[in-house]
Structures are given as structure tokens and as C-alpha cells.
């Protein structure tokens, strides 16, 4: 198992380094004054300009600049956000837990929901039941998350008044302990649900296809020949084998979600990485934008590693393959 992970990690490192170098080159490719490109639409004081030029070796050849930048990133220095008057890494670290929370909550709902629907549709005895489930899932999947989010807000926040419309918590909270957690969950509910429905439908579609593929395998015939009940066949022979492609897709989607669900975070004013990205782009806060892109890339690469390990856990054939 560790060997699988190790082998993939060896491949992941050069990939990440390439992404970082490319990002830096893109930053340098912005026409005009490089310092201005790093700082954004602000007048730059001469003293600050000198500081930047020295820190990033902007007057040295490009390779020197790249090596310097790589060194900074590796030591955790993602630059300074002039707009926020804070180091970029601090900004990202403040926002990341909220995005991770939103993504985790969403996938904690989406994966079981998707698997359940997929198995129900894939093993449905009546074709009509399958058609109905599949079509509903497709329609739900076709609704963009931001619009779905707004629909949920209209129904559950504005009309029924059960849940708050946006944000991550009240301006002033007096709740402690369990009550505090409940209060937070109320804010989390709608964005997580919107996200979960979308991702869940995607997972449902993949699960269904995978279940149907599994049903055609020889070992299902063997399972029938053993006299197992329908439920036992689904539990012991279909679920695990059919979940293999689901792990891949859900894992990659989760890695992607860690980079911030931009539209969803905007709709719900959820102050995560996605919202930070939108604000930074608007203000041409390029150091922050690049920092987010790099951190997102790391998240995707790490999730791919996790997917490989989980895959190997589920499929013994991968474990023994060299």
C-alpha cells in the first residue's frame, strides 16, 4: 500500500514543481511593469518597489527568478497581498478550512446519495423505475449549482424561514458548545445541500453505469449459482466492485472542490477560497490568485494520491501489480 502511494508521490512532485514554474512565468508574462503586476491596481511606493525587486530578483535573469520563487514557495512564502496587507499564505490558511468544511459536508452527503441512487437504478427490476431515476438525476445534474442554491434559498430561507440565507455564521454569536455547532450547521446546510445534489447526481450516473457493467460480469453468474439472495449479491459482489470507478471520479471531484466552489461560495457569501479567488481576480491581487492556484493544484495532486491508495485498498489486483 505504502509502495503504491510512494510511487505516485514521486510522480506528483515534478508535476507540482512544473505547475509552480508555469504560474510564475505567467505572472512574469503579464505585460508592463512586473512589480505592478504583483501588487495590483495600487500606486506602489518606491521603497516597496525596491523591496519586491530585491526579494524576487526581478533584475536578474529569469532562471534565477524562477529558482528564487520556487525556494520561497517550498518554504511556505507565497508572497504578500498588498491589497489585504497580509501574507498570502495567511489569507489562504484562514479561508481553506471553510472550503474544506463545505466540500467535506457536501461529499459526505453526495457519495452515499449517489451510490444509493446508482445502485437502485442499476439493479432496478423494472425498466421504468430505472428510467425515472436516471432522468430525474440527469435533470437535477443539469441545474447549475448557483441556481440550485438560489432556489434552495428562496424555499428554505426566504419562504419557510428555516435557515439563514448566506454567510458562515451570525455577526454576533452567543452560542457555546453544542449550540454553537448547531448554529454553524444551519449556515452550512443550504450551500452543502446544493453542492451535494449536484455532485451526488454525477456520482449516481457513474454508479449506475458501473453497477450495470458489474452485473454483466461472470462472478455475478457464480453468485446466482450459489443461491445467494438479491440483497446478498448486491452487498457482497456488486457494491465493492462497482464503487471502483466511483472512487476515482468522486476523489478527483473532491480535490477539485478543495480549490473552492467559486459560484456557490459567491451565491452564499461563503468566505472560502473560492470567494477569495473571485475578490482577488477583481482587484488584480495576482500574488493571491497565484497562491490559490498553486494550493488548489496541491490539493488536486494530493487527492489523486489518496484516490490511488483507496483504489488499491479496494482492488487487490492493483496492490500486487508492480
Amino acid at each position, binding site marked *: 500500500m505504502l509502495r503504491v502511494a510512494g510511487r505516485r508521490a514521486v510522480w506528483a512532485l515534478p508535476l507540482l514543481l512544473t505547475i509552480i514554474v508555469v504560474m510564475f512565468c505567467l505572472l512574469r508574462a503579464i505585460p508592463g511593469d512586473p512589480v505592478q503586476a504583483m501588487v495590483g491596481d495600487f500606486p506602489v511606493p518606491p521603497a516597496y518597489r525596491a523591496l519586491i525587486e530585491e526579494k524576487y530578483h526581478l533584475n536578474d535573469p529569469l532562471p534565477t527568478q524562477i529558482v528564487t520563487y520556487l525556494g520561497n514557495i517550498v518554504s511556505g512564502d507565497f508572497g504578500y497581498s498588498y491589497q489585504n496587507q497580509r501574507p498570502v499564505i495567511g489569507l489562504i490558511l484562514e479561508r481553506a478550512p471553510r472550503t474544506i468544511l463545505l466540500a467535506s459536508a457536501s461529499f459526505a452527503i453526495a457519495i452515499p446519495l449517489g451510490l444509493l441512487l446508482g445502485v437502485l437504478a442499476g439493479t432496478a427490476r423494472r425498466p421504468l423505475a430505472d428510467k425515472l431515476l436516471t432522468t430525474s438525476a440527469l435533470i437535477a445534474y443539469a441545474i447549475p449549482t448557483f441556481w440550485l442554491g438560489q432556489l434552495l434559498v428562496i424555499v428554505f430561507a426566504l419562504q419557510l424561514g428555516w435557515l439563514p440565507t448566506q454567510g458562515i455564521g451570525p455577526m454576533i454569536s452567543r452560542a457555546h458548545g453544542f449550540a454553537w455547532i448547531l448554529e454553524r450547521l444551519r449556515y452550512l446546510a443550504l450551500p452543502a445541500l446544493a453542492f451535494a445534489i449536484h455532485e451526488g447526481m454525477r456520482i449516481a450516473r457513474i454508479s449506475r453505469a458501473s453497477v450495470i457493467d458489474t452485473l454483466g460480469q461472470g462472478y455475478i453468474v457464480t*453468485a446466482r449459482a*450459489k443461491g445467494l439472495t438479491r440483497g446478498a449479491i448486491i452487498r457482497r459482489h456488486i457494491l465493492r466492485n462497482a464503487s471502483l470507478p466511483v472512487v476515482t471520479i468522486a476523489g478527483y471531484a473532491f480535490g477539485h472542490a478543495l480549490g473552492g466552489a467559486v459560484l456557490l461560495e459567491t451565491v452564499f457569501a461563503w468566505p472560502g477560497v473560492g470567494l477569495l479567488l473571485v475578490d482577488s481576480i477583481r482587484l488584480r491581487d495576482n500574488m493571491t490568485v497565484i497562491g490559490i492556484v498553486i494550493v488548489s493544484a496541491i490539493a488536486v495532486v494530493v487527492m489523486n494520491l489518496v484516490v490511488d491508495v483507496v483504489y488499491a485498498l479496494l482492488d487487490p489486483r492493483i496492490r500486487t501489480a508492480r
Partner: protein
Amino acid sequence: MTAPLLDITGLKVHLHVGERIVRAVDGVDLQVAHGTCVGVVGESGSGKSTLARAAARLLPNLPATISGTAQFEGRDLLGMNERALRGLRRRHGFSMIFQDPLGYLNPTQRIGAQIGEALSDEDGAKTPRIAALLDEVGLAGARDIVRRYPHELSGGMRQRVMIAIALASAPKLLFADEPTTALDVTVQLQVLQALYRLHRERQMAIVIITHDLAVVAEICDACHVMQSGRVVESGPTASLFANPQHPYTARLLELSRRRAGVRP
């Protein structure tokens, strides 16, 4: 004479493949007496597998029109409900083994679990019974085999595992669909010998499907020759081989003799 173990009359299986109707089995009669071995031979596509899978109620999930009758110990097989069918499959009924043991074993489950789930719960602890089954199919020497996965075994071992799974329900009848076709020549003989030994020791009837007439000559009491979904000739193996009536049978025999001559 008592009623046969398996009694198939006028069985037709017409598969609906898209717009077409494939008459995979088109009016077959076949009887299997208790403890006997019956061979079904015929070239590829003649309907042998479909016949066996229809009789074992293991047809693929494909629209099909099935007619005729099939009885197991006098009980109607074709109309039998799932529950009764499961009863027969779990104990003292029938089971089946296939040509491609790798595809017919679950790749993500250990061998022990796959044999274990074929054992009925009523007969006591499973571990010693799994060991006994492995012993019976000649895998006693294989260390730790219960903890291994199908892809870690050789083709011959996998087919022996399939046989162990099939034996778990102590069946009175075993359908063996080209059990040795996918194996190396040397292994083919060993697996066949194991099957024959089990047939004798357990007095278990076998319907063996093959396109290898040498197999039939060795172990079958009776033989049915299939062509395009029909049985064109059948009878006791010895007389059928000595004096084939149908030109198709004669040709099959001729072909297999020629092949046998080529082999060492």
C-alpha cells in the same frame, strides 16, 4: 427405471438480440439419470452453453422466449420461483462451473470467502468445511489459499476453486461448461481427472459441455451432439462413437481423430 434427475423435453430458448431472434436452443430433449455423466458436444455457437444455462436457470438478463419443459427430480425448473430455486442451489440441487474461472470469480474477494458463502449455514462451522472442499479438489497442498485472491492463482487452481465452490452445496448435478477449454493442455487432464474422481466418489451427475470428443469418450456414459440449437444425434457414448449415424457426428469424430494424431 426411476424418474431421471434432469428431464428436458422440447426446450427452446429464443434470444431477442436487438431486432433479431436467435434460436440458440431450438427443441432439445435431454435426460440425465442419477450419478451419470452426460456429454454435450458441438461446434462453437451450436447452443450448448445456452442449453445448460437455461436448465440451470442462469441465462443472462436478456429478453428471451423459453418454451418446453425442464424438470429436476420431477419439479418444474422453468416456472420455479426464486425462493425454491435458491433452495436447490444452496443444498443438494445443482450447480455450475464455467469456461473462464478468472472472470467467474470475484476479483476483490478472498478465495476462502468465495467458497464460504456457497456453504449453507445449517451444517456447522465453515472453516473446516472449506478446508475439506479444498482438499477434495486437490488444493490441500496450496498454502494459505483461502487468503489469496483469484488473480494470484494459476488457471488450473482457479478452476479447482470454481469446482470447490460448486461442490459446496453438495449438488446432485453439476453443469460443467467447457471446464478445461481455457487451460493448458497438461492442466486440462488433471482438472478432468479431478472432475471424474468427484463424479465417482460423490455419485454426482455431470453434464459436461465440450467440443473435445476425447473428453466425452473418456468419461461420459451418454453423449448428445448439437448443431444449430438442435440435438442431431444422441446415445450411449460407446455405440455413438463406434457407429455415428449423423454425418455431422461423423465429421466431428473425423476432425477430432485428425487432431489427436497431431498431438503427441
